[in-house]
């Protein structure tokens, strides 16, 4: 039997059973569309983060004290407890030519109060560089003066929400607050930019790093955030950072360096894995579609026993009958795939029109993966019905059957 003839034969079956065909088509289309659309969400999230990172405009390097053991490196030497990262270390790092702005950070939580209002808040001690690397600005007042980098000034900049809680709509700049044991003058209020890298900037108190050192009575830095100068090589900069630290830490590079690019890469990895996972969940609906095909095909085979018997009587072999029924399911699945993909792309397009902020987009592999899964499910689940059809005994099938 020629392929074109088989397709025509299958098609005539479909148009004779429009409702049944339509429902099966719908089931396959929904399965394919759900795989494509669900993975679009994952891929969209990945692209979203990608875009957020690149919109930062600057390339950051973050240095943490202590070696991250999982990263590898030499095993710790005997009696060598991890050394603190100090302000002096940060000063030394600042002198690396490829490093631009730098923000050493001491962090902790403490009580902040004004008159009778008080609450716990996250305190970050840093310098002017903090505003540069985090691309923060103030909506009222000023950022830290140059002297805040070196002196333990009693000044602070408040996050927008914190300011609101302590001062309501009153002016905060120039007023005094109590941060821990110490009275400090508010010199600025951060512009509200919401979260940045998981830290809620609007509930933050920023104080000079020296002040924080005294407040928390610890010389150890929480981390140092640096901006890489434009055009500078990231790997070279990392090597220079290790070198500087080794010179200052008796030959030990007991720090961990995280770059924005490596962070982006791990986000990418996580989101790609997530996208695969939700794609697999979507594929379950294809399985359901396959089972539906099997059920309905079994019913159809038993209804068409006389027809199958006749086909055999006029010369169709077992294999031809099997092929005819498998082909019928596969044609249906193919049509369902086309419909599902068309629907999914239509939906993605629509959502993109409605929410242009979120870059919804199917990953490149979504369509081939969904199609392959649908075809495989179709083949597996129509195998049994096709085998049944091939096994129909023509004598029994046509015995006494009136048209």
């Amino acid at each position, binding site marked *: *039997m020629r392929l074109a003839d088989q397709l025509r034969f299958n098609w005539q079956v479909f148009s004779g059973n429009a409702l049944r065909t339509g429902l099966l088509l719908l089931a396959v289309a929904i399965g394919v569309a759900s795989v494509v659309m669900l993975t679009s969400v994952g891929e969209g999230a990945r692209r979203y983060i990608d875009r957020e990172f690149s919109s930062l405009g600057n390339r950051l390097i973050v240095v943490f004290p202590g070696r991250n053991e999982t990263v590898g490196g030499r095993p710790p030497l005997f009696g060598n407890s991890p050394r603190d990262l100090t302000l002096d270390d940060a000063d030394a790092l600042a002198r690396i030519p490829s490093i631009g702005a730098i923000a050493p950070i001491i962090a902790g939580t403490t009580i902040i109060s004004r008159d009778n209002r008080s609450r716990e808040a996250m305190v970050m001690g840093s310098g002017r560089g903090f505003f540069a690397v985090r691309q923060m600005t103030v909506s009222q007042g000023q950022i830290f003066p140059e002297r805040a980098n070196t002196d333990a000034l009693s000044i602070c900049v408040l996050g927008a929400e914190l300011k609101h809680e302590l001062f309501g709509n009153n002016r905060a700049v120039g007023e005094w607050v109590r941060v821990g044991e110490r009275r400090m003058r508010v010199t600025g209020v951060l512009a509200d930019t919401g979260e940045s890298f998981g830290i809620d900037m609007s509930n933050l108190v920023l104080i000079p790093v020296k002040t924080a050192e005294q407040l928390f009575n610890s010389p150890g830095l929480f981390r140092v955030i640096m901006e890489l100068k434009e055009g500078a090589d990231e790997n070279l900069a990392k090597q220079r950072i290790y070198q500087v630290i080794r010179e200052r830490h008796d030959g030990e590079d007991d720090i961990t360096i995280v770059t924005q690019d490596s962070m982006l890469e791990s986000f990418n990895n996580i989101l790609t894995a997530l996208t695969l996972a939700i794609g697999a969940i979507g594929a379950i609906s294809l399985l359901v579609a396959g089972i539906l095909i099997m059920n309905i095909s079994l019913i159809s085979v038993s209804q068409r026993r006389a027809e199958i018997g006749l086909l055999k*009587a006029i010369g169709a072999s077992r294999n031809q009958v099997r092929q005819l029924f498998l082909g019928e399911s596969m044609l249906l699945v193919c049509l369902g795939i086309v419909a599902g993909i068309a629907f999914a792309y239509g939906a993605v397009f629509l959502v993109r029109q409605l929410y242009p902020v979120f870059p919804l987009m199917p990953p490149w592999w979504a369509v081939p993966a969904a199609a392959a899964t649908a075809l495989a499910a179709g083949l597996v689940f129509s195998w049994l019905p096709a085998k049944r059809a091939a096994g129909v005994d023509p004598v029994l099938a046509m015995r006494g059957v009136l048209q």
Partner: protein
Amino acid sequence: MIQLRGLNKTYQMGGQPLHALRDLDMDIQTGEYVSVMGPSGSGKSTLLNMLGLLDRPDSGSYHINGIATEQLVEEQRAALRRDNIGFIFQAFHLIGRLNAFENVELPMVLAGETTRARREAVEHVLQLVGLLDRKHHRPGQLSGGQLQRVAIARAIVMKPRILLADEPTGNLDQSSGRDIVNVLENLNSEGITLVVVTHDGNLGQRAQRRVRMVDGQIVEDERHAPG
């Protein structure tokens, strides 16, 4: 051309064996016109299905043109059936969603013939049964006699050498039945081997060779001069 030897077919009916065919021997020559008669349940249809390679005997041998059919695999039997045997059933067995042309064309489609060869052959046989002007009609739009003529066209479109008809007039009124018999006899006069199973004594008497079956056995086998 057809040689049956010691053919047996048994069905189990409620634990009891039922002999549909019993040690049946028969030879049919090319071009013969054979009628098979006998009471209901005597094994006429079973014999016809054996001849048409639709059924396999429990024991015995069946040769077509010297080919031992019981040694063939299913695919080979299907091909032999497709190329040599045309079936006509009491219940027509046309496919309702296909029109007359498509129904007749089906054996050639299964055989992988080209569209062009198909059109030629189908129009020729539809002309032969007098239904060329109905080729686009679906079975639902045709009368019983027309349906059976479409079925005959389908049975002969592959130019088989043997035509097997199981009660071909059983569902038809007298005049349509006569038409069908005429068509079949014309085909026989052009050389096709014709085996007709029938209840109808008048129809049975028209054949040159009249076989009578009872309980799975041939009890009478008469040859008469044509005419």
